[in-house]
């Protein structure tokens, strides 16, 4: 099967391959060291949520995003409390 407009140069498999290359370019490989038990528990849950290839990366990315979001929120609240303690001069 091919994409009619670009049938002479690109087939769907070529496009798929290109997408994978692009994905590889924008993604980063990270090496971390964590507790084995936590890792196993995380893997088991991640496998259930994202069955198939790349489940671990997807779950780690989701966890990191959630952590960033939570920390950003906590920092805003912290700054607000700090301001409450010091008071605003007029």
């Amino acid at each position, binding site marked *: 099967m091919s994409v009619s407009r670009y049938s002479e140069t690109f087939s769907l498999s070529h496009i798929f391959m290109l997408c994978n290359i692009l994905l590889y370019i924008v993604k980063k490989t990270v090496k971390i060291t964590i507790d084995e038990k936590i890792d196993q528990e995380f893997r088991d849950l991640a496998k259930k949520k994202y069955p198939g290839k790349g489940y671990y990366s997807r779950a780690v990315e989701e966890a990191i995003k959630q952590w960033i979001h939570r920390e950003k*929120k906590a920092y*805003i609240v912290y*700054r*607000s*409390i700090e*301001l*409450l303690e010091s*008071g*605003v001069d*007029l």
Partner: protein
Amino acid sequence: MTRMRLSGVVAIDKDVVINAYLKLNPEYRDVCKDILLDGFSGLYTPVITNQILYELLEELISRYRVDEEIVKIIVNGIIMSEHWMKVNYTFKTVERAREIQSLYGLSLSTSLLIATLEEYSIKKIVSGRGDLVIYPYIEVVNPFKK
């Protein structure tokens, strides 16, 4: 003025937030600051309505000329805090507010605040608004009363 200890679910009015953050009156600030700090710590559940958040923002910027970055920190701190409960109003709430307004002769702002609290079964508010006490079904705790 003595420290106020709140428990349960309690609505917080804009005058309490303003007096807690701004150095307007040291005596009022101490009381209001403690009320808010207890709320941020989760000692009780502070409630704020979207209407109050808007009025707070407007008053801080237009009346007190507080720097917008500081206003953002104040308002976002309340919005982002997991201890604060944020409640919204709907068209139905506005209809009820108009009813309350004509029944008790209150301002639309106070009536909308009452209607929103009523909708979420919130029976207590910390506020210095004098007209709120006219409404019999919500307990008003005035932190500015000596």
